[in-house]
């Protein structure tokens, strides 16, 4: 029961870090290939499939009519949840939502919600009576590292292609959901003592704390999260924050390209 593999792996990762190298030959701020496909699921009102290396996730958007919360009678609602089901990897077990999956869903949710890209008032149909509830469900099919960035990208891409199914609910004509902005998440993991971008499964296994940064179109921060055991210094944060700015611009371009097709 001694976790021998992680111990040896940590040593190797540390050695590589000293030489400014990574297990798969990437540079410190290099990413694996990212692919994005949208509108790929029958029955979802918006959908996206993202792969980052061997990591595969889907996001699906559904709408439902609900009565608004009493303290916000003219506002709809947005909810983003993630399921880390046993399909995603050998380490995942069946059961109620794990703290990991709750954290994943909530961090993606905050990035989108706090960017203000969805105007909750536009989701109101009849004030005090009927509003739209928008649900984004994240579904990880294969985890080979960095599911946070994959889920963040899938969520906003799916949302941006969503069509409000007003006809099916008898409340008007179907129309594109209005989404003002493309918040993007960039995640960093401490591996061998230093932060790297887009950690692989092995790097996560032998690594330490992660930092998740969600940036909006203007480069403002909308969500931060530090996960796992470990600490960082303000100087370290400043360094990855610069990298995050570049990374988010790149991924935002990918979303735009997909939409242009």
């Amino acid at each position, binding site marked *: 029961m001694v976790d021998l593999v992680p111990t040896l792996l940590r040593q190797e990762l540390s050695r590589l870090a000293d030489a400014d190298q990574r297990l798969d030959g990437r540079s410190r701020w290099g990413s694996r290939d990212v692919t994005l496909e949208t509108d790929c*699921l*029958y*029955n*979802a009102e918006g*959908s996206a499939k993202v792969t980052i*290396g*061997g*990591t*595969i996730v*889907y996001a*699906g*958007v*559904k709408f*439902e009519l609900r009565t608004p919360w009493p303290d916000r009678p003219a506002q709809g609602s947005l909810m983003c*949840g993630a*399921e880390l*089901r*046993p*399909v*995603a*990897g*050998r380490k995942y077990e*069946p059961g*109620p*939502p794990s703290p990991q999956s709750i954290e994943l869903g909530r961090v993606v949710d905050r990035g989108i919600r706090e960017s203000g890209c969805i105007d909750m008032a536009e989701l109101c149909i009849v004030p005090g009576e009927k509003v739209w509830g928008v*649900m984004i*469900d994240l*579904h990880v*099919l*294969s*985890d*080979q590292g960095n599911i946070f960035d994959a889920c963040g990208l899938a969520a906003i891409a799916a949302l941006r292609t969503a069509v409000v199914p007003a006809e*099916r609910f008898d409340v008007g004509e179907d129309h594109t959901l209005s989404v003002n902005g493309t918040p993007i998440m960039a995640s960093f993991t401490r591996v061998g003592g230093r932060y790297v971008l887009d950690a692989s*499964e092995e790097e996560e296994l032998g690594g330490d704390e992660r930092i998740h940064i969600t940036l909006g179109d203007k480069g403002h921060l909308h969500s931060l999260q530090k996960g796992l055991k470990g600490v960082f210094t303000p100087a370290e944060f400043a360094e990855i924050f610069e990298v995050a700015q570049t990374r988010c611009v790149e991924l935002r371009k990918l979303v735009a390209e997909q939409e242009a097709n």
Partner: protein
Amino acid sequence: MGGYGDVQLLRDDGKRLDGRALDELRPVTVEAGVLPAADGSARVTHGLNVAVVAVYGPMEAHPRKIQRQDRAVIDVRYNMAPFSTSDRIRPGFNRRSREISKVTAEALESVVLVERFPRSKIRVEIEILAAEAGTRCVGITAAAVALADAGIPMRDLIVGVASGKIEDTVVLDLDKAEDNYGQADLPVGILPNTGEVAFLQMDGDLSPDEFNLAMEYNFKAAGEIHDIMVEALQRRYEGGEA
């Protein structure tokens, strides 16, 4: 079966609304080895249905009390993604998915050579990403391919397929409208080489003769799907990692 409306499901030319003949399948595609994290995997589309299956194992069965001394246990989870249906499904299991998981596991145990792996567990994760009637059959087909992709020895594949009844007529492979307004549904899991049945459910109303015709359609269609499954596995062996 729904069967509560006055909906026309057969055209004047005897064909079905989507142009299929009575004994014609919806289009089926099969791909093996689609999930890098899994030991074996498959993706099957059948009409608008999309099922993805991951297989893990054989691995140690724990907790101990689920172990069997003389064979592997097959642990199946059939799950519909929240966005797979017209109305969103709350995540988590419900009574329907638990029943399907149980009978699917029992069907797969009937073909996997479980005696080869005493005390172990084989996990089969069936994820329905899009549902358009007949998902339990699509899941069984995909599970069989994923098990083969994982190199798990089996005495035969299983093919999931269903026939049903609409407008008092037996037809193969109900689509969504036919399922909603039809009179019977007969999903089965067929061993294409032995001609045996490892999975059987049925609901609705079928006379003995109608049942026999529906089974005939199912057996014929199982052969067609089997060919597609075998091709996918051949592509996988030749092509290596997906």
